[in-house]
């Protein structure tokens, strides 16, 4: 729809408050022959149970769980239908009900949303949310093709058979409309891949120069290989609770707000419409902007992300995102998708997205740093796990546990790596509130979640 009825814009309201208390993940790799999928999920799940300073023992927490939500992007990759049943059994959680969630790249965020709904409704008071993807059972180009079947198979898939070729036209249009140059995109790749060097679980960490990024192999013009995320094998999990259970399990629970938006699978089908305004935006402020770029959201922006932010900010009472959020984790599957989102979630007004990076706000030490985890570019994109892992990284920041989960030598050892000598903490001082974006397709499904310190 391009105009809304009153009911369409209703702000979600939990019946009960929702909290997150723990997170876990595997190290992320391109190829994981050592472990079967269920063994990887067990690794993430046990880390969640054992390493988050919870006040009950792992088996007591197991005894407390009463619902599970599982995220998996593509049966193509797992080559196994009903993976959820295998995993759930492997975690010893039968006969508690579980559901599988499948919304492309936003699967992880949607899984947290569904788990939150189970808590908010009272169906459950302790809910496991876990996700996975094993993209290592096919060669890379077959993997590229599988992912491209998340473009429209009748009208788009044949035009590239690789997802970068659906983002690259957006990059060229964005550059034309808003004066985005190669250098800014390269800076994002450099920043996120650098932050990944501090993350023991990162698949493709690295300190790169702008020249290296811009001279790396072209995937689809203007997007180079170093501007594209990894294909990953790995898993992640978080634990959601109602208020009573949250404080029983943890002295440091965080409150969860999350909502989603959607838009057409094909970018090209997006008809121009009015911009739904965020709480910090004033009616009429986009008059000049729309005179120049009348086709909003066009190829430049994501209505799904804007709509999700529209709802979540109002759910959480956020007035001025850049001032109130201490950090964000964005869906940097490609450098361009990262840039596009800055306007959608109001880190900058539309048309001024680039300034979020060039001003320094996006960096550690800046006003609202993004992707200190290393993001999808540097750390992982095991698709069904991604939005769950992002939320765990946000949780640890708000709990002041960045060092506990990134600096402790045991995690580097678990990943089969040595902790780098130049390791430095990326803990945001006094972080109280973090946002994460989980994003599918070329913006077909997006969730925006906020975690807020609750102790």
């Amino acid at each position, binding site marked *: 729809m391009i105009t809304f009825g009153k009911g369409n814009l209703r702000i979600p309201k939990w019946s009960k408050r929702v909290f997150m208390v723990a997170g876990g993940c595997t190290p992320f790799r391109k190829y994981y022959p050592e472990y079967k999928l269920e063994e990887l999920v067990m690794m993430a799940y046990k880390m969640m149970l054992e390493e988050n300073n919870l006040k009950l023992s792992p088996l007591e927490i197991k005894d407390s769980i009463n619902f599970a939500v599982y995220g998996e992007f593509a049966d193509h990759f797992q080559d196994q239908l009903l993976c959820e049943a295998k995993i759930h059994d492997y975690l010893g959680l039968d006969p508690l009900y579980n559901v599988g969630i499948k919304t492309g790249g936003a699967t992880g965020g949607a899984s947290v949303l569904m788990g939150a709904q189970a808590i908010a409704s009272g169906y459950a008071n302790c809910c496991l949310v876990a996700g996975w993807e094993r993209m290592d*059972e096919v060669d890379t180009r077959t993997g590229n093709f*599988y992912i491209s079947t998340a473009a*429209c198979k*009748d009208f788009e898939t044949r035009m590239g*058979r690789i997802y970068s*070729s659906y983002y690259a036209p957006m990059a060229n249009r964005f550059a034309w409309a808003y004066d985005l140059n190669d250098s800014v995109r390269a800076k994002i790749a450099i920043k996120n891949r650098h932050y990944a060097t501090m993350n023991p679980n990162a698949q493709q960490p690295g300190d790169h120069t702008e020249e290296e990024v811009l001279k790396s192999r*072209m995937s689809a013009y203007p997007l180079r290989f170093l501007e594209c995320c990894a294909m990953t094998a790995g898993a992640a999990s978080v634990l959601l609770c109602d208020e009573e259970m949250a404080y029983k399990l943890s002295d440091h629970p965080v409150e969860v707000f999350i909502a989603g938006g959607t838009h057409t699978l094909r970018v090209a*089908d*997006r008809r121009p419409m009015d911009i739904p305004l965020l709480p910090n935006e004033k009616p009429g402020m986009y008059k000049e902007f729309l005179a120049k770029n009348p086709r909003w959201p066009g190829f430049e922006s994501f209505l799904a992300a804007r709509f999700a932010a529209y709802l979540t900010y109002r759910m959480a009472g956020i007035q001025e995102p850049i001032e109130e959020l201490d950090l964000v984790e964005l869906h940097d599957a490609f450098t361009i998708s990262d840039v596009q989102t800055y306007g959608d979630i109001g880190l900058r007004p539309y048309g001024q997205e680039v300034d979020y990076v060039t001003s320094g706000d996006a960096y550690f030490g800046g006003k609202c740093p993004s992707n200190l985890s290393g993001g999808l570019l540097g750390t992982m994109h095991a698709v069904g796990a991604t939005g769950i892992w992002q939320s765990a990284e946000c949780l640890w920041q708000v709990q002041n546990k960045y060092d506990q989960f990134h600096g402790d030598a045991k995690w580097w050892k678990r990943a089969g790596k040595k902790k780098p000598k130049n390791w430095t903490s990326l803990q945001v001082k006094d972080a109280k509130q973090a946002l994460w974006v989980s994003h599918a397709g070329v913006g077909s499904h997006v969730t925006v979640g906020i975690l807020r310190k609750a102790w």
Partner: protein
Amino acid sequence: MAENYEKAIKTKYIGKPLTLHDEKPAWVVDSPRAMSHIHTYGLLTPFFQGLTQGKLMATKCTNPKCPHPSVWLPPRADCPDCYERMKWVKVPSQGTIYTFTLVDYAGIGVEMKTPYWQIDVAIKGVDTIFKGYLESGKPEIGMKVKAKFRTENPTHTILDVCWVPA
């Protein structure tokens, strides 16, 4: 058939053994796949037929009560705004490039030789943008292009139309 339920039988393995892809650190087996799907174009069949006849067929909502009557290319049979069945209309075979990319590294099975220019075309009177590829030339935003149809030896896919500079 009934007989087999009552007799002891000996079962023979008739599969093809898997080869070991890796032996360390764990056994990894090769698991080859070859399969074919069928796929219907359903109510969009006139669009794909149209390509083989040298025309671009879009759908148009003609319901006078529709809140946002639009012309759709890619077509869709039912209007998402008023839920009425739409009408087929022929749209111009010319347009301007809205955006583009050069596909250099493509996924497996790609049917055009890489690199090639993929383009998104804005067509007058059409409310959506239409993705395709540029058969010759170099694209820029705003450049005029015209459709070229594969009326001989059609592929029966969206690749039966491409674009050339106008």
